[in-house]
């Protein structure tokens, strides 16, 4: 359901096109914003709108879309006791600005998004794999990640036999 409350009007007034969409789903506000304006918006949300807590940073893969990744920031404001979800559409290979300067918690969360999806975050000081071993090939949470093939390759390489899968 599209969202058109005072908050969104104010944002659209201030940032115009940077706010692409705004809707409300199951009573939770969601904004889709322009990737290039993300840094400015992040600072704005933290400083002016008091969303000082980045609860979660993750991504969703929609392979059939042109810009396949949905990078999602779940924000929370202590003062207002409200949540807000920001999204950005990113293409495969497009790098997303890092919000580590705004919310330092994003450090490991962005590393995990990189590890699982292959999304590069520009401005992140140490972007490398966090959960998977450093030499892992491929990005598991992508929808086209063939886990059977990975398994077969690993077994062939490390055990020297053919996987029975």
């Amino acid at each position, binding site marked *: 359901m599209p969202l058109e409350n005072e908050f969104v009007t104010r944002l659209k007034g201030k940032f115009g096109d940077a706010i692409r969409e705004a809707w409300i789903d199951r009573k939770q506000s969601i904004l889709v914003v322009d990737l290039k304006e993300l840094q400015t918006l992040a600072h704005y949300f933290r400083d002016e709108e008091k969303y000082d807590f980045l609860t979660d940073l993750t991504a969703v893969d929609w392979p059939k879309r042109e810009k396949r990744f949905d990078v999602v920031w779940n924000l929370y404001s*202590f003062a207002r006791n409200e949540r807000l979800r920001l999204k950005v559409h990113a293409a495969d290979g497009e790098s997303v600005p890092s919000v580590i300067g705004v919310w*330092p918690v994003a450090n490991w969360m962005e590393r995990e998004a990189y590890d699982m999806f292959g999304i590069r975050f520009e401005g992140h000081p140490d972007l490398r794999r966090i959960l998977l071993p450093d030499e892992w090939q491929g990005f598991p949470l992508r929808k086209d990640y063939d886990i059977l093939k990975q398994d077969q390759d690993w077994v062939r390489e490390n055990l020297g036999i053919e996987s029975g899968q």
Partner: protein
Amino acid sequence: MTDTHIERVPGVSSTVLGADEIILNMGPQHPSTHGVLRVKLKLDGERVVESECIIGYLHRGVEKIAEHRSYQQFAPYVDRMDYVAAVSNGLGYCEAVEKLLGAEAPIRARVVRTILTELQRIASHLVWLGTHALDIGALTPVFYCFREREEILKIFEKYCGARLTTHAFRIGGLQYETYDGFEEEVKRFCVDFEHKIDEYSTLLTENRIWVGRTKGVGILSAEDAIALGVSGPVLRASGVAWDIRKAMPYAAYDLYKFEIPTAPSGDTYDRYIVRMEEMRQSRLICLQAIENIPAGPIMARIGKVLKPPPGEVYHSIEAPKGELGYYIVSDGSTQPYRVRVRPPSFINLQAFDRMARGSLVADVVAIIGTIDIVLGEVDR
């Protein structure tokens, strides 16, 4: 390891003496890292200059598995993340899916869920207390804590058949009715537990050695805590009075009166005090809830095959370790399109570097213990 993030601890320098810094590795197998956690410490003599946590040894790809299971089939998997507090994980997931479906569990189910979740919080904090005390050298409290936890696990076993990975709740409510004698046993446990908690308090709270080992160790200021996304008792011990049970009540928490303990300084001692007090408050919630469990159905009418309308939801609960969130995206089919678990231990562990810098090597073990991490949740 890239060096871009080293901040020199003021007053500590090795370059003046020409002494080298050594890198100490607390490997994945270590009695005090509470699981397979690897901590690389850069030491200047006794002081920690920089630390790095290397995780992923317990990564099982839970989020990927979720995309290939139906909503109900995925429910047992969430127990295995924070395996010390499985009931809380289950509560978060079931409520998130219920929100996605637009359904709500009936009041009786919500009250029983609250009771079991609070008992699980006590059990989780007992494990934390026992192991934390053991790391610092107090050899006895761990046995007392596990003795109490045994009573809780017996209640769980009688209720749903399992002690640890309980899968106690179902999407839409509960599967099992409470057994005969449930109220009496929970009440008896809560009544006994008050003396027991006083016992642990006597052993540790005013003990000079305990205070000496935990006061001033691993300080995290409120600002740093919020910036680093820390939640749960760690955040409350830094002075921020925030608890999702009060801020955005779920299950039946809005029916009961309880306090949120906070502490001012954000050191290890304060986190200890906060968790001890939380155990007392959980006990009070259980006593209030047990007095009056409303009669009624225990399962909402949502049908056997769950196909939530397309969309997404983020729902979080106050797990014993912090804010446990589930971000579930549905594409209208019986299997979730994406399940993202916001793990409190993972995010709290990120604050470890902040807490450990400038502290002594012997304090590192205390700091790891005080964050209360479960590697199953950190790695998923």
